């Protein structure tokens, strides 16, 4: 709605109310409460109409509200104009606002009447209203109300009018009104029963409001006789429920918009699409909401319950909104929601954000898994390479040196008697070979401890402890064998920790404890040295932490200054 039309509507409403107040103004009138009541009801309908027009530009609800407002006030303005023609027209259209309200109720919440029958009911209602008004006017002599020359003339009056005919007409009109009210209320209840999702919830306030308005219509009709204050001032206030209908639905849409935000925030990262659908449906108040995804092969859509969805034919009363082009996801929702394009856009945006979040999460997770796996592979490849190197050294150089030693031994023994000088030369060569052998053995052991492959942690840790330059005791080592990568990691933790104890800790003693718990292996090396070890520094601890992380474990260092060092590797282990 552009601002000129809005300005015109507001001006029109103001003028109408102004005219009403001006035309009916009588100083010190006993009718003052009645006038205030009429002005409030009429104005509220017109304001609701303008607002509804603004909110639902495509819907006729705004127009209906506005018309109801005008139809409520204009007849009284005309009657009060003291002009015969105006007075007559005013009388003809009096009470037609009731028919407009019935029209509004039947068109709620989409703004359109649902069937030809209902169109018929609405038209018949307008027609009977005008027909009875016309008939009644023809028999109404203004003199009946006690005013003579001061009253405007009744243009349609037949003769002097007839009170009995008038009374009969009034009673008939009230009875017809009762029937029509019944029909309208029944139709509204049927609308509610057949509605689903968003539309059904939109019908709920009407279920309360329609009977109240219907009752008002009947109570103010000619079957009942209350005091003028009740009939003309108090009961009409019930009609304020009409604009309240608009306020409630607006509040509901706003609340749903807010709830969407909360729903998305509360949705934990990486939640499955089913959870997203449930959260959106809950926030939106549309239990029929479906979140459907395009199948990878392009062969249609499936919703989160596995049901096939055809976005081209969403079914009666259903509508489709794409989430984003890229995601290939669509929302299939109650058609009534199309009246709230803002809300639908918000929902699609929320769904798109959540889906994108999940997708990114999955991507990052997958990348993380890849990096983890590749790190584990690199470490394993390194271990395998070390094993191979150690074996090559053992089978090659070491064996050759042993054979050389043996040959030198033989040569020495033979030379010793004939040529002692040569004998001692060979002896020194033999000694060199032995030392080379010892060095080579240490080198090979440093590259990869054969004892680890052969006997597992028990033997390997025992070997480490035996060669530790600091007095070290083993508190516990599990007997069984574990996957090679885990044994190697545990071994390197103990090895590196004991090397650190020897190098930095200035400790008198150290303890090694390896314990197996369900699902994990806990390796602990502690000493009574100076403490103060930091894994952040450039020490071997950083590399050790990486090594432990390569098998998905965690390295903890507890090393208060002066309080010894406790190194703990928590390694996942089947």
């Amino acid at each position, binding site marked *: 709605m552009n601002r000129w039309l809005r300005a015109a509507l507001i001006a029109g409403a103001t003028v109408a109310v102004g005219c009403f107040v001006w035309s009916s103004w009588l100083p010190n009138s006993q009718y003052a409460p009645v006038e205030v009541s009429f002005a409030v009801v009429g104005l509220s309908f017109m304001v609701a109409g303008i607002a509804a027009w603004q909110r639902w530009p495509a819907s006729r609800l705004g127009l209906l509200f506005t018309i109801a407002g005008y139809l409520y006030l204009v007849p009284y303005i005309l009657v009060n104009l003291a002009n015969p023609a105006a007075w007559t027209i005013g009388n003809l259209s009096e009470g037609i606002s009731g028919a407009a309200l019935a029209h509004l109720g039947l068109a709620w919440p989409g703004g359109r009447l649902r069937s030809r029958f209902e169109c018929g009911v609405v038209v018949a209602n307008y027609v009977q209203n005008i027909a009875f008004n016309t008939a009644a006017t023809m028999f109404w002599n203004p003199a009946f109300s006690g005013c003579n020359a001061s009253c405007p003339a009744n243009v349609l009056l037949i003769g002097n009018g007839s009170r009995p005919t008038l009374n009969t007409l009034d009673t008939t009109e009230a009875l017809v009104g009762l029937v029509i009210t019944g029909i309208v209320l029944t139709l509204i209840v049927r609308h509610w029963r057949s509605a689903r999702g968003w539309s059904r919830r939109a019908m709920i306030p009407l279920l309360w409001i329609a009977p109240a308005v219907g009752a008002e219509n009947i109570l103010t009709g000619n079957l009942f006789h209350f005091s003028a204050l009740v009939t003309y001032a108090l009961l009409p206030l019930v009609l304020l429920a009409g604009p309240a209908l608009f306020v409630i639905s607006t509040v509901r849409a706003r609340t749903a918009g807010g709830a969407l935000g909360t729903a998305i925030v509360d949705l934990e990262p990486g939640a499955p699409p089913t959870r997203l659908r449930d959260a959106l449906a809950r926030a939106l108040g549309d239990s029929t909401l479906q979140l459907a995804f395009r199948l990878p092969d392009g062969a249609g859509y499936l919703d989160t319950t596995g049901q096939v969805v055809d976005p081209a034919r969403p079914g009666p009363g259903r509508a489709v909104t794409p989430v984003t082009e890229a995601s290939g996801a669509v929302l299939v929702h109650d058609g009534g929601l199309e009246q709230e394009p803002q809300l639908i856009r918000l929902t699609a945006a929320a769904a798109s954000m959540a889906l994108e979040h999940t997708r990114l999460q999955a991507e990052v997770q997958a990348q993380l898994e890849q990096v983890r796996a590749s790190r584990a592979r690199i470490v394993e490849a390194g271990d395998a390479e070390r094993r191979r190197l150690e074996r090559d050294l053992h089978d090659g150089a070491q064996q050759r040196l042993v054979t050389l030693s*043996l040959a030198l031994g*033989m040569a020495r023994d033979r030379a010793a008697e004939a040529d002692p000088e040569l004998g001692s030369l060979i002896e020194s060569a033999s000694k060199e070979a032995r030392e080379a052998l010892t060095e080579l053995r240490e080198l090979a052991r440093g590259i990869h401890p054969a004892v680890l492959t052969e006997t597992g942690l028990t033997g390997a840790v025992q070997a480490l402890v035996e060669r530790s330059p600091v007095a070290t005791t083993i508190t516990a080592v599990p007997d069984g064998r574990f996957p090679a990568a885990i044994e190697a990691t545990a071994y390197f933790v103990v090895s590196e920790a004991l090397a650190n104890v020897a190098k930095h800790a200035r400790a008198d003693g150290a303890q090694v404890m390896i314990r197996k718990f369900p699902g994990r292996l806990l390796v602990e090396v502690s000493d009574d040295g100076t403490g103060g070890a930091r894994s952040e520094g450039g020490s071997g601890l950083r590399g050790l932490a990486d090594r432990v992380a390569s098998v998905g474990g965690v390295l903890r260092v507890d090393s208060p200054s002066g309080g010894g060092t406790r190194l703990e590797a928590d390694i996942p282990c089947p």
Partner: protein
Amino acid sequence: MSVTARPAEPKARLRVVIAEDTVLLREGLRRVLTDAGLDVAGTAADADQLLKLVQALSPDVVLTDIRMPPDQTTEGLQAALEIRRQWPGTGVIVVSQHVETEHLFELLADDPRGIGYVLKERVADIAQFTDAIRRVAAGESVIDPQVVSRLVTRPRRNSPLETLTERELAVLALMAEGRSNQAIAEQLYMSPKTVETHVGNLFAKLGLLPAAQDHRRVLAVLTYLRR
């Protein structure tokens, strides 16, 4: 090449079977041992062959490498344990490249009689090596001095070992190597009586029960040192 003849042993020559997968070393050993007056009854290149030879030849002593085909891990050790089970009278020397004691203790189990654990570089000292074979054949235990010395010199805290005199430590090490009192006395140039006194003293200091038999003594001492 002239072969230096060694005086023949008065009694029948010891029959030895060698298991070693490196051809050069295997043949070298055969030659050295033959030259040293031992009867190398057969040689094997892997553990299966070794077991078959032991079955067929009933040697006095078996000499086997720890690592052998097909897996190059501890096949020799497993074969040695099998031989101990099936033919308990056969002496077994395992030649190892491990200074660490894990394999040693697996081999000793609870009866160290007729068992030797010798580092591979020991083959360079032929006299010492053949002496080890003879001792094992005689039912003694032979533990490589280097392995023992590492155990003895390990750093310890609040250990009674710190209270031993140098002499007592030397006696302890020789006991751990599997030497008898007689041999210890000869090596340390002391009387057997003195050796006995030292043994008694150090057992008391370490809180070990005195063991009359040498093999029990070896086990007790090694176990103590390994703790």
